[in-house]
């Protein structure tokens, strides 16, 4: 974990209010499912913004984000060569080394990006990987999964492409040795329920507002059977069976 100054390489609108920003990559290990705290302002905002890692290679690091407030609005205005401060890599990431066999990755909306590197890693480790991508209406960022997994299943609530409905309708957890998921809470809860019934191990990446991003301030706590856990430090990925939803 380091706090470094990086440069914007590209910052593009992918679709609607969804953007990808590619920046120069800080040194140090990055694991699939980890995140960074981003800051591209001085005094104008008080908090950095936690954004999960979408893609990385030796030179670059890419985040995908949706404009939902002032911070992401600000990020969307950045141009090539603008400076951006990154704190990370943070959090635990998905436990790619701990699962074996046939793995399902289930993403909903902007919960999809952290699954790309995860799929890549799981495939490189010799697993069979099926990716389930759930969208509200228009599709984004699904083509690149073709190179890093065995099968892709797509749903959209609007029914423009793929299955019309929820992605959880397509998922049969009993067919898998493990499930990794990231997306809306309601989707992840449903997946946890399915996995409990089929006795399938399940890991969920939790999204929370964050303060420090490193585990000190306790604003991102998640209630678990093991006590209160910090999404930023103990997570963001938790064993789904440990999570307690209030």
């Amino acid at each position, binding site marked *: 974990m380091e706090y470094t100054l990086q440069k914007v390489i590209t910052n593009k609108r992918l679709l609607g209010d969804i953007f990808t920003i590619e920046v120069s990559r800080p040194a140090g290990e990055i694991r699939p499912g980890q995140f960074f705290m981003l800051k591209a302002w001085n005094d104008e*905002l*008080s*908090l950095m913004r936690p954004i999960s890692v979408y893609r990385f290679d030796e030179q670059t690091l890419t985040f995908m984000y949706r404009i939902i407030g002032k911070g992401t609005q600000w990020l969307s205005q950045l141009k090539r060569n603008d400076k951006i401060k990154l704190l990370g890599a943070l959090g635990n990431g998905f436990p790619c080394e701990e699962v074996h066999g046939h793995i399902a990755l289930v993403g909903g909306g902007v919960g999809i990006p952290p699954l790309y590197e995860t799929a890549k890693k799981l495939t490189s480790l010799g697993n069979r990987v099926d990716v389930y991508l759930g969208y509200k209406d228009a599709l984004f960022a699904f083509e690149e999964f073709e190179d890093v997994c065995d099968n892709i299943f797509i749903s959209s609530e609007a029914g423009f492409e793929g299955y019309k409905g929820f992605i959880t309708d397509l998922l049969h957890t009993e067919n898998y040795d493990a499930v990794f998921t990231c997306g809306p809470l309601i989707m992840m809860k449903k997946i946890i329920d399915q996995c409990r019934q089929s006795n399938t191990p399940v890991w969920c990446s939790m999204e929370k507002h964050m*303060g*420090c991003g490193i585990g000190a301030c306790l604003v991102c*706590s998640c209630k678990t059977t093991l006590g209160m856990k910090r999404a930023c430090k103990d997570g963001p990925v938790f064993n789904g069976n440990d999570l307690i939803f209030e």
Partner: protein
Amino acid sequence: MMNSNRLNVSINNIDFKNPLIAASGSFGFGREYNELYPIDCWGGISSKGLTLNGREGNPGMRIIETPSGIMNSVGLQNPGVKNFIANELPWMKQQNTVILANLGGSCPEDYVTGVELLNETDIDILELNISCPNVKSGGMAFGIKANVAHDIVSQVRKACKKPLMVKLSPNAENIIEMAKACQDAGAESLSLVNTFKAMSIDIRRRKPVFENVYAGLSGKAIKPIALRMVHEVCHNVTIPVVGIGGITTAEDVIEFMMAGCAAVQIATGNFSDPMIGQQLPQQLIQLLDELKINHINDIKGII
């Protein structure tokens, strides 16, 4: 070495290498920030707010950005005094910085029992929290009315063998009367301000953003009000005052020192810039040079 001698301060005969204290709640017990930089650059560290028994804190949203600030509603999530003593304090004490244990409570008995446990440790200062706005049954309940604060501080004073700092709420009915009451009751120093009780509404959900309805406002937005309160208090008590409220720059630190503070605390600033603790001492030295001030205490209380 010359440089460090220009920032050292003293509160109740406790020596701080500089007047910068990491404020309770923003810094945990220091372990996480120590992964970023050696935390002995701080003059002191105030622990996460402790209660006698551990607490899970508040449900729902716990932090949002506001104009020039943040609102939080953590609700004193902490491992409890005993776990702090067993698992956190030994490590903190190895860090070559002054350790303040911040203690909250919901009844006098809990405060006193907590103090008795902390008496037997090597914490340097007890910071009594009568100002947390995020816990319904306590904390700030003792920090609104001066006579109520006088009562709780008196009881804690009798039990406490450590230097006693009382952390005040800006939500007090009258901050000067509150400060005087705490001094009369035996507080040996004061820290202020904690967060301002504030509110935010999610107009689309037609609900308060925070489960507790109200939450605590901090950050740059509160600095001018905090500075005014600190100034008023410094002119009305004789005990040392530690300033808190939106401090993010060396200039801010000098302002609070000029207003009469013996030291300052930094909370929200750690979130805006995670390296602030490492950078501020050097920036302070540079500012002293620029302002032709030899030692930071030379400008203490000149306003």
